[in-house]
C-alpha cells in the first residue's frame, strides 16, 4: 500500500509544542475552518470546493437502468471517490490508501444511508426503469480535511444538479431532453455535512479542520455528521486516543454551529449561481402553474 511521506521528528515536536502553547501553524484559532470557496461548473451538478489548499471536485451524472429486483420502487444512488496522484505522491490509482477507504465509508454513511437523497423519487416505472445517480468525487489537491471538503462538494453538487424530466405513458417512458422540458432538481430531504475534530495530547486538545501536517501528528479523530437542524447522522471515531464523553457533547455543539454556517454558505452560492443562470427571473415564466392569459390567435 502506498504510504504518505511521513512528517519529520522536528516538525512533529514543534507542532505538539505549539499546540500546548495554544498556537496553530497557520495562526488560526482551534475551532476555525480554513477559507472555504465553492464554485459551480457550467453544467448542472459540478461543484468545486476549495478548503484552504485542499481542492475537491464532485460531479453528478445520471443514467437510466433497471432497478434492483428487491428494491423495485427505489432508484440507485452511488458515490465513487477517486484520489488523483496529482494531489499527493502517496495516492495511486487502483490502490486505495486508508484515507480513501475511510472517506468513501464516511460519505456512504453520511449521505447515502442518512437518506439525504430521496431515492424513491428516482423511480420511473416500478421494477422496470429508474434513474441511477452517480456522484464522482475527485480529490485534486490534498492538504487535509478531505472528508469535510468532499461532503460539502457532494451535497452542493446534489443541490445544484437537475435531472431530465420523464413522460410516462403506461409502460412507455420518454426521457425529455433539456430543450423539450426544463430539467428538474432532485428531491433532497436534508443536507448532512461533516465536521472532523482532531485529537491531540490524549484528548486534551482538539482542532477543527486540521491541515495535512496536523493530521499526521494527531492521535485520533472524531467525525460528526449532522444537518442544520441539529440531527446527527453519524459519529465515527478513528485512532487510539480516548475522548471524554462530555467533550464529545461539546463537539456536537461546535459541529452544529459550523454546519449551520456551511449550509448558509452553500445556499448563498446556489442562489448566486441560480441568479446567473436565470437573469430577470425568466425561468419562472416557464412554469405550468402560471395563470394563463387568453391569447388571441391571429388570423
Amino acid at each position: 500500500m502506498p504510504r504518505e511521506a511521513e512528517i519529520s521528528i522536528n516538525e512533529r515536536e514543534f507542532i505538539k509544542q505549539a499546540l500546548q502553547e495554544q498556537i496553530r501553524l497557520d495562526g488560526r484559532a482551534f475551532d476555525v475552518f480554513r477559507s472555504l470557496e465553492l464554485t459551480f461548473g457550467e453544467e448542472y451538478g459540478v461543484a468545486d470546493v476549495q478548503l484552504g489548499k485542499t481542492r475537491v471536485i464532485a460531479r453528478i451524472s445520471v443514467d437510466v437502468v433497471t432497478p434492483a429486483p428487491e428494491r423495485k420502487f427505489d432508484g440507485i444512488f452511488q458515490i465513487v471517490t477517486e484520489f488523483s496522484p496529482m494531489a499527493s505522491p502517496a495516492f495511486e490509482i487502483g490502490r486505495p490508501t486508508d484515507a480513501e477507504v475511510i472517506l468513501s465509508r464516511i460519505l456512504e454513511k453520511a449521505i447515502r444511508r442518512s437518506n439525504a437523497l430521496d431515492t424513491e423519487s428516482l423511480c420511473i416505472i416500478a421494477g422496470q426503469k429508474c434513474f441511477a445517480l452517480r456522484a464522482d468525487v475527485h480529490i485534486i489537491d490534498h492538504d487535509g480535511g478531505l472528508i469535510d471538503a468532499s461532503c460539502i462538494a457532494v451535497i452542493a453538487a446534489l443541490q445544484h444538479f437537475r435531472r431530465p424530466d420523464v413522460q410516462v405513458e403506461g409502460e412507455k417512458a420518454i426521457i425529455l431532453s433539456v430543450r423539450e422540458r426544463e430539467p428538474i432538481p432532485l428531491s433532497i430531504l436534508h443536507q448532512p455535512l461533516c465536521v472532523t475534530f482532531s485529537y491531540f495530547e490524549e484528548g486534551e486538545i482538539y482542532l477543527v479542520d486540521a491541515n495535512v501536517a496536523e493530521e499526521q501528528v494527531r492521535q485520533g479523530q472524531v467525525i460528526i455528521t449532522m444537518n442544520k437542524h441539529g440531527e446527527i447522522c453519524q459519529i465515527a471515531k478513528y485512532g487510539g486516543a480516548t475522548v471524554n464523553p462530555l467533550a464529545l457533547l461539546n463537539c456536537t455543539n461546535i459541529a452544529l454551529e459550523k454546519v449551520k454556517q456551511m449550509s448558509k454558505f452553500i445556499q448563498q452560492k446556489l442562489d448566486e449561481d441560480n441568479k446567473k443562470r436565470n437573469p430577470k427571473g425568466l425561468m419562472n415564466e416557464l412554469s405550468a402553474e402560471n395563470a394563463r392569459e387568453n391569447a388571441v390567435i391571429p388570423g
Partner: protein
Amino acid sequence: MASALTVVLPGDVVAQDALPTGTGKKKTLTLGPGLRHIPPNTVTTTVAGTLVTDNRKNAALVEYNSGRYTPFAGDLVIATVNGSAAENFNCLLTPETPPAALPHLAFEGATKKTRPQLPPNSLVYCRVASAGKDQPPELTCVDPSTGKGEGLGPLKGGMLFKISLGMARRLLAPKSELALLDVVGAKVGFEITVGRNGLVHVDGGNVRTTLAVGRGIQEVDQKALGESGQRKLAADVLKSL
C-alpha cells in the same frame, strides 16, 4: 546580479550583446538551464524568467521559479531520513523524488565504530555529492577535501517550512539580501538553514519566534514582496512577538 534585469519569455532570441563576452580564461560560452543553442550562433530561451549572466565564468542562464526539485551535484539540501540500510541512510529530498543515499561514514568524524545514529524521520542538512539521471543521488555531510562538517549534519529542534525553489536559490545566493531577515534579525536571534530542495529550517529558540520568522519567509515568497513590503512585514512580525 546585474542591476537591470532582463526578462525573457520562452522562444525569445537572446541578443549577442546580452550574453557574456568571456573576458577571462574561459573562451567557450556555457549555457545554463533555460537556454538553448541553435547552431550556428543563435541562443534562444525555453522558459520564462530573468536572464542572468556571469562574465567571469562566461556563463548565462535563465533564473525561473520552477515547481519541482531535481538534484544537482553541489546543492545544499535538507533531507529527511527514511530508514537505515547496511551502509547508507535512505533519505528523501522531496516526497516526489526517488530516495537518495547518505553513507553512514559521510559525517564529520564518523568511523565504522562511531557511526551516527539517526532515527527515521530526522532531518539532515547535507550536500548532494553526485546526481545522475540513472542512479539515485548520493548525499554527504563532509567536505571531501578537508573531512570537516562545515555546518552540515543533523538538524535539531526548530521547524521546517516549505518555500518555492526560486526563493530557496535566492536565500542561498552569495549576496542574498532579504530585508525581512535583516530587520527581524537585528531585534531577535534566530537561525535559518536553507535547503535548495525548497525547504527552510528555522530555529528561533521558542515557538513564537520560529513561527513568525518561518511564516514571514513564506509570505515574502508567496506574495513576492519587495523591499518596502518586507520592511512592513518585518515590523508586523516584531510586533507579534
